[in-house]
């Protein structure tokens, strides 16, 4: 099996879905002639024409509303929001329309809408262009939220999202686009709402998603070699619905958990997962659940300050060293 970048995996999936289903079409800012700010849609306008790949004005509320209407009438739109920071004007269309219409109107029309959008900091794009706003959407019933960390999952989850009849927020990450990984088999599907144990371990569990899941896997492999710590990594992949069974099984095995997320800590994904664990696995917990997240300030532009603000492997390693059980820590 060959290797493929996260970007290529997304591109291939879009192309395949455009070929497979005539109802699938793409819309967003600069996705046609300019081939996308991050080149995910490179070449697609040329191959599928302006009816299938639609360049829109810079009006997020307008084109998200348009896509919602198209979905109501049976099309399967895939919207690209250039970065998640620009999704803010479209919140009404997403939260009050796309998420509600199926339930509020007697199930007359499903909304098979996908909104792809990258989040994440670390590119020196400053406070308004580096955010991780996935929690807003994971909070809303009627939406599904996925956040793959590998090219294979990106492909498998995007394909499932396109074929799902509910609005899906498909979270990408700027720093993941060039990451390479195993190319999945053709027509690879990853079910929504299914977490994955990306590394087995015995001493503690790190639960994460998106780019931090990749960082966590790296850290876990390294610590296993260097410190002999056996760390289990769970990539939840879907934030809504959240796969309780997999994270519970892992924590029941290791008895200690860290939730590692790039977004802010308060009211975050970690808060939700920690609450779930204490509700459903209280008697299996040997320590309070740790949350490792970014500092709660508007992200500075300055590189040193940006580095100091965002969470990363250093913060995770510190947390692991604090949380690892004493009897396992000593064995070198």
């Amino acid at each position, binding site marked *: 099996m060959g290797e493929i970048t996260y970007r290529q995996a997304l591109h291939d999936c879009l192309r395949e879905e455009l070929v497979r289903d005539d109802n699938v079409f793409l819309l967003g800012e600069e996705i046609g002639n300019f081939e996308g700010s991050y080149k995910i849609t490179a070449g697609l306008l040329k191959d599928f024409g302006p009816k299938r790949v639609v360049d829109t004005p810079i009006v997020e509320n307008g084109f998200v509303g348009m896509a919602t209407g198209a979905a109501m009438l049976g099309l399967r739109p895939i919207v690209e929001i250039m970065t998640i920071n620009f999704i803010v004007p479209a919140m009404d269309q997403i939260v009050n329309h796309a998420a509600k219409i199926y339930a509020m109107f007697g199930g007359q029309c499903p909304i098979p809408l996908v909104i792809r959008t990258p989040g994440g900091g670390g590119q020196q794009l400053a406070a308004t262009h580096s955010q991780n706003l996935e929690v807003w959407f994971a909070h809303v019933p009627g939406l599904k939220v996925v956040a793959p960390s590998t090219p294979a999952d990106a492909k498998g989850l995007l394909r499932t999202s396109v074929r799902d009849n509910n609005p899906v927020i498909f979270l990408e990450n700027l720093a993941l686009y060039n990451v390479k990984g195993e190319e999945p088999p053709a027509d690879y599907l990853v079910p929504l709402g299914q977490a994955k144990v990306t590394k087995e371990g015995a001493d503690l569990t790190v639960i994460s998603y998106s780019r931090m899941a990749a960082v966590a896997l790296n850290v876990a492999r390294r610590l296993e070699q260097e410190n002999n710590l056996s760390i289990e990594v769970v990539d939840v992949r879907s934030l809504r619905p959240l796969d309780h069974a997999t994270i519970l099984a892992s924590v029941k095995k290791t*008895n200690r958990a860290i939730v590692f997320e790039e977004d802010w800590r308060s009211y975050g994904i970690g808060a939700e997962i920690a609450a779930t664990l204490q509700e459903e696995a*209280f*008697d*299996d*917990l*040997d*320590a309070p659940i740790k949350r490792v997240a970014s500092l709660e300030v508007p992200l500075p532009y300055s590189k040193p300050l940006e580095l100091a603000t965002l969470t990363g492997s250093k913060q995770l390693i510190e947390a692991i060293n604090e949380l690892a*059980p*004493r*009897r396992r820590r000593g064995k070198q």
Partner: protein
Amino acid sequence: MSEITMPRLSDTMQEGTIARWLKKTGDEIKKGDILAEIETDKATMDLEAYEAGTLQQVLVQEGETVPVGQAVARIGNGAGDKGEGVGETTSAQQPASAAETSGDGTGATGAVPTVSVRTSEQDAGQQSTSSYTAQNGSGKAIKASPLARRMAEEQNIDLSQVQGTGPGGRIVRDDIEDVLEQRSASPAPAPTPPAPPQTALVSPAPADAELVKLSRVQLLIARRLTESKQTIPHFYVSNEIDMTDLLAMRQALNANLGDEGVKVTVNDLIMKACALALEKYPEVNSSLKDDHFVRYSHIHVGMAIDAPNGLVVPVIRDANTKGVRSIAREAKALIAKARINRLAPADLEGGTFSVSNLGMMDATHFIAVINPPQAAILAVAATRKLFVPVDGQPVIRDLMSVTMSADHRILSGATVAHFLQEVKQLLQNPYSVLG
């Protein structure tokens, strides 16, 4: 209602056997009543009631062995019994649960229950609250992770006895695992009694043979003696001691005692002589521990006693500093306690050297097995009247044969021979023993 748990009666006690119940179900219990006799690996002791009530249920039958902290009986207030029946099953599944522990702390559980009928729902609620705020004996809350609590409950571990090493002293899984590891490493932990020494009993016992179950003390003796003989390289040095003068002195000592006085025995004098010799040869008063030579600062001499329940070795503490009359008085008391199996763990702990005396049973010579972790034991045989040459003439003297068994890892033949010479010197000049 409260539970009576198996108490920890000595530092090393891990479990205990109910030897005999002195109260039966339905009996009124007053505070301080003796409920049962408990047999530990060291001694038989009383289980005392700390609160009044009615003995409601016996949870552990005579002869059964349970770990420290496990409930052995329930005491309830006679009036509240029926009303509390509902909650009984819930609490029965929670040995030594926190509710009872906190009850012990306040000592008020024996009072009339304020709510005589509780619904099972209320009861369940109370259970979970109390397990969350478990308290130790001093009434201080015990901090433990939920997992550690669950493990402790499953493994019958008393959390108040566990040292927490988590943040802020929280008891975590690591600490419970430490306890479990210690349990499996310590000699007498398993629910199944340790196997008696492997005497090659290849064929099954014949049908007409009587099978006598060993008591816990006998099992312990069997195991420790096997361990001693298998792990300690014993060697033996003998000597003969002329006891003629000592016997004369002892007679004089005891002659005008009257009724209250305690007679000094030959063994008391030998014990004292050994204690004095140990002062001079401190290497004999020691142990081998891993890579250390442990030299004890105190001289505690044990004396082997053939008690009905098996061999016991109570200890005369600081025997080198005590007069022979004190030793005689203490020895007499210890022997009396041993005869009725009432020696306390404190009577048996801390010996640094032992004396085993079969002289009164006419044994002419024998060798003893070292009592670990001690380094040596002196076997004392009978004193016999023998002709010995004095100035070329046969003279009748009282001769006593002694044999020392010593741990060759830390003691040399020369040291042991010198030690015996010293004992001999002291006993043959008996007034020096009185000093």
